[in-house]
């Protein structure tokens, strides 16, 4: 006998003046290899066509479908119902602006934060189409890729104590991103410049060390290590700044 799954789903349509936040319940028969991607689409197509949620790749590489699944942020597409109890409660990710039901606006948040931390290679080197590429050790390329694997799904922020209390905290996502650039010799920023970006309370010193971010990261990125390394590096830079005050106008601000 297959299970009759009971879905409790948060509902609210901010564009509809008659809509109030509430929970709707849907029943669905469990089929083999059922994922939340298949289940939610079935509910939408067969029971309630207005149900809002986000999926794109449905293979855990695009980061669209972050939601709170029985109290824990995760990617819905890679969640098999067989791993869950019969009653499944789905809520939208906190921290991000609600679009409706389970859909949140992660795009605006991540673009603003990537702009704030200047998430790009800082270099004066012009590209020369005639020249061969600069050499790099393969191990280094692999190490950069390890951190570059983040898919900006937002689960780390949804699980973060600081991010839930303060909307100016850049979160594990951005600190990991900065670690990626620190590691990359093509980015010419110096430690004092990185310090200006993340050596603050909105950056690494806002982290309370609860480390739920690492627990929920669907990409299994070693966030705990990266946060630790970055904290030591930035604390050391902070000490250096005390003994050698910044020259006026030398550092970039955001």
């Amino acid at each position, binding site marked *: 006998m297959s299970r009759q799954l009971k879905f409790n789903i948060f509902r609210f*349509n*901010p*564009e*509809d003046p008659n809509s109030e936040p509430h929970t709707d319940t849907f029943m669905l028969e469990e089929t*083999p*290899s059922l994922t939340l991607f298949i289940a939610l689409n079935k509910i*939408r*197509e067969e029971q*309630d*066509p*207005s149900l*809002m949620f*986000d*999926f*794109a*790749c*449905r*293979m*855990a*590489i*695009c*980061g*669209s479908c972050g939601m709170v699944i029985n109290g824990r942020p995760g990617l819905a597409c*890679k969640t098999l119902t067989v791993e869950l109890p019969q009653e499944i409660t789905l809520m939208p990710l906190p921290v991000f602006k609600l*679009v*409706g039901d389970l*859909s949140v606006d*992660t*795009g*605006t948040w*991540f*673009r603003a934060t*990537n*702009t704030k931390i*200047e*998430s*790009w*290679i800082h*270099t004066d*080197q012009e*590209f020369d*189409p005639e*020249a*061969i*590429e600069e*050499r*790099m*050790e*393969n191990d280094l*390329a*692999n190490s*950069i*890729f390890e951190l*570059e*694997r983040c*898919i*900006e799904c937002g689960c780390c922020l949804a699980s973060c104590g600081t991010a839930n209390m303060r909307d100016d905290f850049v979160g594990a996502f951005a600190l990991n991103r900065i670690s990626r650039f620190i590691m*990359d010799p*093509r*980015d010419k920023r110096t430690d004092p410049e990185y310090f200006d970006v993340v050596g603050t309370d909105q950056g690494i010193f806002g982290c309370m060390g609860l480390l739920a971010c690492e627990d929920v990261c669907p990409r299994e990125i070693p966030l705990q290590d990266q946060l630790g390394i970055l904290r030591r590096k930035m604390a050391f830079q902070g000490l250096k700044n005390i003994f050698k005050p910044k020259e006026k106008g030398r550092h970039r601000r955001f």
Partner: protein
Amino acid sequence: MEHETFYTDLLCVGAGLAGERVAIAAASAGFDAILLSLVPARRSHSCAAEGGMQAALGNCAMGEGDSPDVHFADTVKGSDWGCDQECARIFADTAPVAVREAANWGMPWNRVVAGKAKYWKGGEEFEAEEKKDKHGLITARAFGGTAKWRTCYTADGTGHTLLYTLDNKVTQLGVRVHDRVEAVSLLHDGANCIGCVARDLKTGKLRVYLAKATLIATGGYGRLYSETTNTVINDGGGHIIALDTGLVPFGNPEAVQFHPTGVVPTNILVTEGCRGDGGTLLDVDEKRFMDIYEPAKAELASRDVVSRWMMYHIAQGKGVPSPYGDHLWLDIRHLGAHHITTKLREVYDLCRHFLGVDPINQLIPVRPAQHYSMGGVRTNSDGAAYGLKGLFSCGESACWDMHGFNRLGGNSLAETIVAGRYVGMKVVEFLQGAEVTLKSSMAEQGLASMSERIDRLVNRADGAENVYAIKDAMQLVMMEKVGIFRNGTDLQAAVDALREIYAKAKKIGLRSSGIGANPELALALKMPGMVRLAICVAYGALMRTESRGCHARDDYQARNDRDWLNRTLAYWRDLDADLPDLQYEPSTKVMYMPPGDRGYGKTEIIPMDAPKED
């Protein structure tokens, strides 16, 4: 009507790699650009490209002696001589520059490690010496249908990493990205394209974009099929708005590729890199079979050829029975834990999470699934669409057309930033000479008619057909009758069925309110257009009475260069009609490489100069 209007020089519909690369070109030249995207840009389908992009750098041992000439020849053979050879030439020449440029922007390409290295080919291990003087340069892996190892990669997350690299550049340049905005119709005066009407998918409100140049870079139309590796947003949205003008043709709609290794049952892709790195295909007896059908290339023949042999082998009773139908096995166990958990890490993860299979010790169930759209918005070699000035297209959405009737693995990711770089340059030239005055009044009619369409859907003015039932019916017809093996009877039945589905699609009525970010309305707005695209694919396939590349007709098995060395151009001039007008043009204006044998995939060929039959 109250609405927002945005003015810009370049409007890119689609913010995957192709759209972003063209926007970067325009912004770098000092022009204003806006990117529209159905999803946050970094969630575009470009991120799903795993294995890599082809560029003839020739740095790794197995790539030695490679050059753009060899890459060009592989691409033309791969296309089964269906491609535009001028574009294939531009592409092969530009690819190395585009790869290095991406490195300059931060792309962590994998690099050559000097010394002896062990590789696998067809289940056999062999050794190669990576040269000292190449140490640290960009390396490459093998992909199907190539004479040399040419596919540059970052593990098996190449598309993801490249997309993030380009989006970083977009962020740096301050290009405006309007995500969760869908272009729903193009604005034009019969000669010039001047932007689009769009729907804000966060609020449901309509808005207007007026632009001197508009680019369609919306990816493929895989979601016309029920079993596809494509992301849910690859629904042909860009093709629909172009075709709906009645002026812009859909080039080679019937050119649809099936990838050999979709996993069963979810159709998630496992990269061709698995076979490139030495993985093999096994049947129910756990025996290889590709080496029997294709002695030279075996598992690494082109995708159309491997997919066909797989289906043929299953038809011979050699498939593995499962509740989801017969399938075959992909075996990468011999590559070992280290290789699988580093160079094929995404494959490792998705097998465990979605299948409960550990590919280090277990076989992966695979079957061909729809994968790539070679057809698309027909453009010239500058990326300028036929039929409307100021309209461009680039990437998978375009029929530029470097892929003809079959795309090589590693050539699609490459096309996005290679064609993007080239077309970007041409768009900049166009903008430098553009003398368009944009007035908000130009959008009034387009806006009013879209608004009326929405009202009719919400009020069920035309009927109460269920949009999801129509989508399912269309996808099933396409899968069953316009798939890997095609024949006249099935294709005619498909066209007939799709015409009936189209009649219903015009009578859709919403079951929900349609207020706000309503998903039913979003689908209902594009459903008739999707069925029109499906009819173009089925009808184009029915009329093409030959076999070429991925278009394999049981009733016309020969490649017919005498009558069909051409490209289909499907026009939909009248929305009340239920069939497109098909025209044809020669496949290529310049013929660097006359039609010949591909060296894999046995086919009879009717030569160009064969006498006509009566």
